[in-house]
């Protein structure tokens, strides 16, 4: 069985999805979904360990060898991203049981868990496949299920948010297919490794830059890089809490992974950065995202929306790291991918707890919550500290590498922007903290602490964000090795 692990990682959740839909009762469906998520988590750990010991895993789908068949190609980057996705899934699923039961009507429960499993398998599929068209298929599997899950939000604005996301997301996906088609017409292959080999010979042809552009636009739309982020704030704000926590920590991360994959593995750093001068595009956009979106976040009155804008800013950090095109820069991007998944997951889950107990996440409704819901708000503060980048949290580790990467290139103004960004994070996090801790709670309104089944998963992520901030040598060395793999140095 272990040799089929790469495909089972994706296939088990995929096949459990219709099972979850068919069992009908939401509790049973939850059990099926939980089994799928935890299986994926266990499998992704095994895969990562195997990749670290034995190097890249090649798996020929159905026994058809690459480049004719579809190849699953798992290197350190893929395994790491798959682990992030699966880990967040494994933590969110027990949380979802209570949260979703409250926010989504019972008769839709089974369908929800079915969509959840589809989304998970789609995201896992993107991270492990070595075939560019397969990427598109999995991207659509995950996106379509995500649209459906977002539309289940309580507020009717969830529907328009999902529709907007559907239009923009499908446009992005179509851009990606166009790019893939143009690559295929030039090279006659869809296999990533094969493409990487054949592309340099034809890279002078105008079709290749066009393909590159379509792919870049399509992927940056999916990862919500400013100014293509318009779908994100509404989608995150109105989706059910568990969905926001899951999607915010995985979907955009996987899109960042795709960016890395296409830039570095398929096109190669030399083409992307020297011929196409990608850094000239990405770096300014990333800087604007960091400053502009943090500023917008400060003025939000809905905390989920605030965190959503903060996510756009944080994506700016990842893209900024990548735009340096250096080992250190890419390392910081990959590290932040992991770190941000932990902290944003924790923050959105804390907001889910507030939603559960208070019924709203508007900032004025959170007065006095520091006393009434001490564990939830402590989790929020913990995640917030990480977002600010305080030492002993994962946010600090990301910043340490990112600033180092900027200084390495002599770009100290960029380093200063990173610091200003984290100070702006201080402002918007503290805005919530002040309301929760400095204003008295409304005595007429009986609010109780969220149930343990939600608090425990939230705190798992909070503690993880502290743990990997104190002992970052594992994640940092994985990220460094992954960056070296991508850039093809030090091997």
């Amino acid at each position, binding site marked *: 069985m272990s040799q089929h692990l790469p495909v089972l990682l994706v296939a088990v959740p995929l096949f459990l999805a219709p099972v979850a839909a068919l069992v009908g009762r939401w509790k049973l469906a939850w059990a099926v979904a939980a089994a799928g998520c935890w299986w994926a988590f266990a499998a992704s750990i095994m895969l990562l360990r195997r990749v670290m010991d034995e190097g890249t895993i090649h798996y020929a789908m159905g026994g058809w060898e690459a480049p004719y068949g579809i190849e699953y190609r798992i290197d350190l980057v893929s395994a790491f991203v798959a682990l992030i996705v699966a880990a967040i899934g494994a933590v969110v699923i027990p949380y979802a049981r209570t949260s979703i039961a409250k926010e989504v009507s019972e008769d839709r429960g089974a369908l929800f868990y079915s969509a959840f499993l589809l989304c998970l398998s789609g995201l896992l599929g993107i991270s492990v496949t070595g075939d560019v068209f397969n990427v598109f298929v999995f991207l659509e599997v995950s996106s379509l299920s995500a649209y459906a899950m977002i539309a289940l939000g309580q507020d009717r604005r969830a529907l328009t948010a999902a529709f907007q996301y559907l239009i923009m997301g499908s446009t992005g996906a179509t851009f990606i297919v166009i790019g893939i088609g143009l690559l295929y017409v030039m090279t006659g292959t869809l296999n990533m490794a094969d493409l990487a080999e054949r592309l340099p010979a034809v890279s002078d042809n105008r079709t290749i830059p066009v393909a590159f552009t379509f792919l870049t636009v399509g992927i940056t739309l999916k990862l919500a890089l400013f100014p293509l982020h318009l779908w994100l704030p509404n989608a995150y704000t109105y989706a059910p809490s568990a969905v926001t926590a899951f999607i915010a920590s995985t979907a955009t991360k996987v899109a960042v992974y795709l960016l890395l994959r296409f830039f570095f593995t398929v096109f190669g750093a030399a083409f992307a950065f020297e011929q196409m001068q990608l850094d000239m595009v990405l770096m300014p956009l990333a800087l604007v995202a960091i400053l502009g979106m943090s500023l917008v976040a400060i003025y939000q009155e809905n905390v989920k929306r605030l965190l959503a804008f903060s996510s756009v800013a944080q994506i700016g950090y990842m893209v900024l790291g990548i735009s340096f095109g250096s080992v250190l820069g890419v390392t910081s991007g990959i590290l932040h991918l992991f770190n941000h998944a932990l902290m944003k997951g924790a923050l959105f889950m804390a907001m889910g707890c507030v939603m559960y107990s208070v019924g709203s996440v508007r900032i004025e409704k959170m007065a006095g919550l520091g006393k009434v819901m001490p564990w939830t708000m402590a989790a929020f503060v913990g995640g917030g500290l990480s977002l600010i980048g305080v*030492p002993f949290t994962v946010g600090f580790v990301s910043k340490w590498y990112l600033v*180092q990467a900027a200084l390495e290139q002599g770009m100290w103004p960029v380093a*200063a922007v990173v*610091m200003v960004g984290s*100070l702006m994070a*201080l402002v918007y996090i503290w805005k919530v903290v002040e309301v929760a801790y*400095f204003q008295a709670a409304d005595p007429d309104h009986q609010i109780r602490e969220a149930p343990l089944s939600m608090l425990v998963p939230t705190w798992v992520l909070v503690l993880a964000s502290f743990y990997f901030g104190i002992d970052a040598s594992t994640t940092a060395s994985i990220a460094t090795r992954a960056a070296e793999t991508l850039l093809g140095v030090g091997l």
Partner: protein
Amino acid sequence: MSVGLLVGFCVLLPVLGAVLVLVLRNYPNAREAATLLVGAATFYHVLGLLHYIREGARPRLDLLEVVPGVQLAFEVEPLGLVFALVASFLWPVTTLYSIGYMRGHHEENQTRFFFFFAIAIAGALGVAFSANLFTLFAFYEFLTFCTFPLVTHHQTEEAKKAGRIYLGILLSTSVGFQLIAIIWTWQLAGTVEFTEGGILAGTASAGVLGAILILFVFGVGKAAVMPFHRWLPAAMVAPTPVSALLHAVAVVKAGVFTVLKVSLYVFGIDLLATLAATDWLAWAAGATIILGSLVAFKQDNLKARLAYSTISQLSYIVLGALLANEWGIIGGGMHIAMHAFGKITLFFAAGAIMVAAHEKKISRMHGLGRTMPITFAAFFVGSLSIIGLPPAGGSWSKWFLGMGTLEAGQYGLLVVLMLSSLLGLYYLLEVPVKAFFFAPPDDAHHGPGIKEAPLPSLIAIVITASATVAFFFWPDLWHELMTLAVSGGAS
């Protein structure tokens, strides 16, 4: 217990104390007794380290590697021991004082108060024992965050505003300047370990090193070099024991200690003396000394006056570091101890007046000396030490600082020191003199209802005041340690 573990134990003890405080939250007497006992034990163990330092040993404890090449580690050296001894001795004394103050003043949330108090001491000891810039920065930020609940203890609108200034200034300087300086150092020197003689010499041009020095000096917001001093007066909204320990001892001393440590072990005296930036910064410190004194002169609120006096005195220590010679460093290091004991006495007295007579304004304290003789006598002694007059310990550190200015040929700065002492003579001694010799204001209620502060507070005041006098006759401990620090080895 091995020496390394002993160091870790010293930092851990206050945390244990904090846990005990939480456990015993329903038994106030046991809670305070536990804090006192743990405080005494902490001091005892820190004192135990003195023996090793005298032998020329540098007890070290490597905790873990946070990111490759950067350790979380403790290493005790003479300068750090000075700070640790001061902080750990004054903690139980302040606890004693707080028992009288918090109960006499009917403060709420006393458990939270004692909890964060203990945690803050752990942070201060972590700063004192840090083996490298990373560890120092981590505990520095830790200290900022765990003192925030103390500063905003009253949770009023005023406390919230003060808390904003407090966090805003301390974090923006540390994140915006200090962290960049640290990462820059790491980039240039390839290490952040504190090393005898410095690590930066010869790694970059004088201009770059000067820029890093400026980032360090202003980045240590806790040293309150103008224009980054506003947080200190703002933080005076806190209960007086907090102002006493944190803003005369732990927090501000963590700041100046960082400046001294960076001067000695990152730049090294020799390198420092060659940089042009050192001179400019010395004058910035000189300006802070004078301006701080002048502003203090104008304050009628006693705590505000003490706060500005602290700002001025802190810059004495910064100046000592920037004189870049042995006299200056010895004087600066000794001033950490001398100023701590003197200023805490003044704050204790101010708090005692507040508890007993409910007066905050100096102009309304006339005549109070007759009803509270011990308090005002202690205030008198503390003032002498701050001004630098015998028979109080402060005269020694001022003497060495003066010698340092002569050695550096900075006669202008010597004048600055003298002038500031003259101002101090007026703005500090005014308080006890008027209290003893002036008639009370007509509408004051200094009648028979007022007596001295509660007994525990009074004992604490007497202890610190006597220590201040004792250090005039026996300054040897501090002098010996600082001599070891600059000579860099066994005596």
